[in-house]
């Protein structure tokens, strides 16, 4: 499947979910509407696209200028040996997107990281909580509104397990 044919097929399959398809330094970038994110991911995971590996989920903060967070998914198809970047925008006032945790098993941890770092909620996630920082950490450190080297309040010792 060539690049153009692939994009055409994705457009046919996902229909109005696709907002734009572009190319960034040779990487294929697909932008989808946030309300159809989960169906788009589910569609891409199936054949003929076969994006069986979720390489990564991350987020970019465009809150100051554009009032949005951009979620970035990197998918990889083992059978076709191609990567795809999928993006969707969520409003900065109430950032939330459907969880992909039922589709890929690593989505659980990756979404916890995005939640921890950016405060994006993922309805449908089984146990959404901080992962790299700790219970009692204030704010979401990778937001642009969070100053670099901000001191955190001291927290009480963890309860014994």
């Amino acid at each position, binding site marked *: 499947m060539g690049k153009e044919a692939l994009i055409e097929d994705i457009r046919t399959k996902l229909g109005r979910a696709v907002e734009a398809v572009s190319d*960034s*330094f*040779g*990487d294929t*970038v697909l932008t989808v509407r946030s309300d159809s994110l989960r169906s788009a991911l589910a569609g891409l995971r199936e054949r003929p696209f076969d994006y*069986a*590996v*979720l*390489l*990564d989920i*991350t987020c*970019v*903060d465009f809150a100051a200028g554009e009032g949005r967070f951009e979620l*970035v998914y*990197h998918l990889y198809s*083992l059978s076709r*040996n191609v*990567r795809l*970047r999928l993006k969707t925008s969520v409003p900065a006032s109430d950032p939330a997107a459907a969880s992909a945790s039922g589709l*890929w*098993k*690593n989505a*659980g*941890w*990756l979404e916890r*990281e995005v939640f921890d*770092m950016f405060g994006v909620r993922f309805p449908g996630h089984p*146990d959404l909580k*901080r*992962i*790299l*920082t*700790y*219970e009692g950490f204030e704010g979401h*450190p*990778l937001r642009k509104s*969070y100053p*670099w080297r901000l001191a955190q309040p001291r927290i009480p010792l963890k309860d014994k*397990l």
Partner: protein
Amino acid sequence: MQTRIQREARPESMLINMGPSHPAMHGTIRIMLELDAERILNAEVEVGYLHRGFEKTCENKTYFNLLPYTDRLNYVSPLINNLGYAMTMEKMLGVAVPERAQLIRVLMSELSRVSDHLTCLAAMAMECGAFTVFLYMMKAREFLWDTIEFTAGARMTTSYIRIGGVRADLHPDWRASLAAAVGETRKVLKDVAGLLDKNSIFQGRTRGVGVMSQEDALSYGWTGPCLRSTGVPYDVRKASPYLVYDRLKFEVPTGECGDNYDRYNVRMREMEQSLRLLEQIAVLIPEAPPLTGGLEIEPAEAIRVSRRQKAPGRVRLSPNLEGSEKDRLAGLMTSDGPVGVPPKEDTYATMEGLISHFLFFMNGKGIRPPKGDVYFSVEGGNGEVGFYIVSDGTDRPYRLHLRAPCFHVVAALEQLIIGRLIADVIPTFGSMNMIGGELDR
């Protein structure tokens, strides 16, 4: 607040903490276990003990300045992290790297890969009680790191691979030290295989323990030796070749059932392939060209003479700049745009050189890639090391994200240990090669 495991715990079972202060947890991970005698009924893994805000720090540094932070991700194979970052930037800047620099990069990548696998297996074997294996493998690693240290000047925090090329040429004696390192490592691999491959204690703790199916491995986003142990031959060096890997001969070893023994075995065989690559690359790298221009003169003398005539000879550099002479740098660093540090001879002895030095290091100047976002990945010791960088056209990344391979691997730990015995946690966790610097960023 209660953790998940506390909420779900059965009243008659026992809850126990394993780590972070546990010798096998490397100080950076905590596993909470719900036990029925020795049997693990439920488990919860807590990570983040080594989180130091790598991504936030990088977003506040210039593209040139953030390179040393990438050394501290996977700190047993720092050169591969350097490489991943440098190649991502090169993809965005669209610069071509000279042939010699590409060959040196492959050499450094493979040395790092062997030392990464050695560290993982050494720790895994030690935690299973095979202390001899640990000592043997650490010895081999020192020989490899000697080769790296000769050239890069440091064992672990190298910052040697730079955007656009490499920092300096190989040390004059690199061939001898590489040959010694390859020979010693081969001996150690043979000894270790003799100690472990048919050892019934090691077999008992690794065969059929921590079994991962292919479907689950892909669903968890596993890459690298852990994925290959389940039988999937995915290797970034083969799937999307970078540098000169498409010109080199090597195989991608795979396992059969994805248990701890397969993960050990795949790493052992991969090290042999890496040694093979090292030998091929040593033949391909030509001898360094001799330095031109007769006598050496001090920078101050060069400035004084150049007021009247072109200074004769070449400017003497500090010994710690050995290998980065202007003549050498041409074959090691791209000449497309302001990507690498300008040659020090020019900086010390000419006004134009000093200006270009300042223009490279001043705030707001230096490396400024075009607007856009880019993802690029290389094959690290643990799997696919990917960088995602968003540029807004300034000299600092708007967003820099690392795809850490062991994050995905450790995410599957709970599934692998539930239903097993406490003792099975140790080899299972050891065979994953969890590296705190990369996992927690």
